[in-house]
């Protein structure tokens, strides 16, 4: 016999599972290519960047294809999940009206869906790394930890955005523009070394900068991530996550009347 607390945890996990499954199935059923689409976009982008920056602008970064693909996959998770989280409350009106439904699970489900897409793309990335003769080794064991940190970043951002969009319906448009700016402020297709030294501290305020650097240290250089630069991100997540959850919970009291 399960205790009430256990029952609640089981139910929460079941709910998360079924909501994530719903997202995956919808994506899978909408087109023949299904989940592959989530790979095609970054691969096409990769091709563009490789062509432009190898042949036209000549950026010199070692293992450039792996370097850019890592950046694109990490970025895609952030971008897709935050955009999707923005619409998740309005898109699930019936669930929100359901008595006892934990509304705060919706942004989490979106973030976890992003995580799964990222994980599904990893074999392709590993293929690139092998072809690029990157230094794959024991450092890969750190990968889940980095994914966990990124999950925290995405969930915290999703809580804030999902709530904001109920109050202000143009959040999604504004977010699209902001993400575009942030994309160029993140070293997806260029190297951090290109940022002038005097701006680098300012630049690293973008949590995606140390995070992405960490991913590359693990995947391409075969090193453990530099904890000194990751620590602020971890602290940020630990502070922002409960805070954004609180804000969301407070706002969720009024969701039903506003959607």
């Amino acid at each position, binding site marked *: 016999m399960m205790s009430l607390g256990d*029952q609640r945890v*089981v*139910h929460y996990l*079941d*709910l998360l*599972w*079924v*909501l994530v*499954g*719903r997202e995956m*199935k*919808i994506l899978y*059923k*909408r087109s023949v290519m299904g989940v592959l689409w989530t790979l095609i976009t970054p691969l096409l982008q990769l091709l563009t960047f490789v062509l432009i920056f190898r042949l036209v602008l000549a950026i010199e970064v070692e293992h450039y294809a792996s370097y850019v693909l890592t950046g694109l996959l990490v970025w895609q998770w952030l971008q897709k999940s935050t955009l999707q989280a923005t619409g998740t409350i309005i898109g*699930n*009106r*019936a*669930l*929100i*009206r*359901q*008595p*006892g*439904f934990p509304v705060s699970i919706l942004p989490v489900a979106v973030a976890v869906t992003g995580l799964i897409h990222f994980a599904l793309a990893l074999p392709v990335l590993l293929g690139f790394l092998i072809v690029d003769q990157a230094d794959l080794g024991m450092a890969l064991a750190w990968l889940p930890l980095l994914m966990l940190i990124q999950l925290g970043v995405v969930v915290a951002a999703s809580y804030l955005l999902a709530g*904001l969009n109920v*109050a*202000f*319906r*143009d*959040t999604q448009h*504004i977010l699209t523009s902001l993400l575009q700016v942030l994309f160029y402020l993140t070293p997806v297709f260029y190297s951090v070394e290109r940022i002038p030294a005097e701006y680098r501290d300012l630049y690293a305020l973008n949590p995606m900068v140390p995070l992405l650097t960490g991913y590359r240290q693990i995947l391409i250089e075969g090193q453990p991530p530099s904890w000194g630069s990751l620590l602020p991100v971890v602290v940020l997540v630990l502070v922002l996550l409960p805070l954004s959850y609180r804000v969301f919970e407070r706002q969720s*009291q*009024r*969701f*039903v*009347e*506003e959607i």
Partner: protein
Amino acid sequence: MSVSVQNLGKRFRGGRRDRPPTLKERLLTWGHSRRSPGDFWALRHVSFEVADGEMLGIIGQNGAGKSTLLQLIGGVGRADEGRVRTQGKVGALLDLGAGFSPDLTGRENLFVMGIAAGLTRRQVAARVDRILAFAEIEQAIDNPVRTYSSGMQMRLGFAIAVHTDPQVLLVDEFLSVGDLAFQSKCLERIRALKSDGCAILLVSHSPEQIAGLCDRAIWLRQGEVVSEGPPEMVTQRYREEMRQETKRRTPQRAPERSASGAMLEMEHNRFGSLEAEILEVRLHPCGSLEPGEALRIEIGFRVDRPLPSPRFNVSISRAADGFICLDLSTGHASEQALIDNGTAVLSLQRLDLASGAYFVNVGIFRTDWRYAYDYHWHVYPLQITGGSAGEGVLAPPFAWQLEQGAPPR
């Protein structure tokens, strides 16, 4: 007590706008107070209790706060005043089938909605067969929900909701689910839940539904409880107010003669806003019958502008004292707008009324019964002749038999 509501109050932000606010506007008007003066109480000073196995009816017009009340009891949203306490799992029959994803199959949606309604995955798996059998869609269960008719979707939604072991069930106008056979199945299921101790709150704007199903009723008007008690009493007071509202809306007009030659005089034997008009009422075969004969009532009407699914009502009342012997209305089934001229027909296969003088009263009402568009009271006479002349209003075919010598069975 399964549900206890104490001094509940909910305030809505006023000045509802046509479209949701945007962040851009907000940033541009930074620092200006946006608090609009039009805040209003959607609910105020509402208190009641519902016991295990009790069914409470909540009646009121659109916008009276009925749905808001159900939401607060379901723990959706927060009250500004007072509190709600519920015991056990709260289930809901709100917008049935609204949460389904069209691209997923019925089975996949069943799992999503079942788990969202509070069951674990394993519990849903154990109930799938029962739910499908109840919804009568075993064959279609692995097809995408977008191929379902709206009736199938509602049936599936209903089946899921009543198989989640609720201890409190919130119902919003559920009787529009599917055909008559399915409706009676739903009713049976609701009664079974009730006898298992589930407390049920039924929201409706139909007095018949409330009076026919509930143990107790409350009447909400503009967010406040106007009346609470036995459903017959509450619905009677609700109808009374409807009559008052109709009276208020009845315009002045010179007496006129209807197509069948009857005199119609406003506020005397004719009431209503006249947004729809009854032009003619014909009784077939004629206005004089013997007990047990068939009667057809044809109502010719006209509307000036389209009216959303109004209700037709026919009653037969005794001429001497106005006692209502029969009262029949079109239900949810007639969800059809009136746009033009037309005829509504009520066929009674047999009418077993005792002999005497009666009137056929005919009306067209607003969907939510708030007031009458046109109502003719004691205009069309009906004479029943022959048959037994005793007390009472019924004269069914009958036979007496007398047996002696055998012990009573």
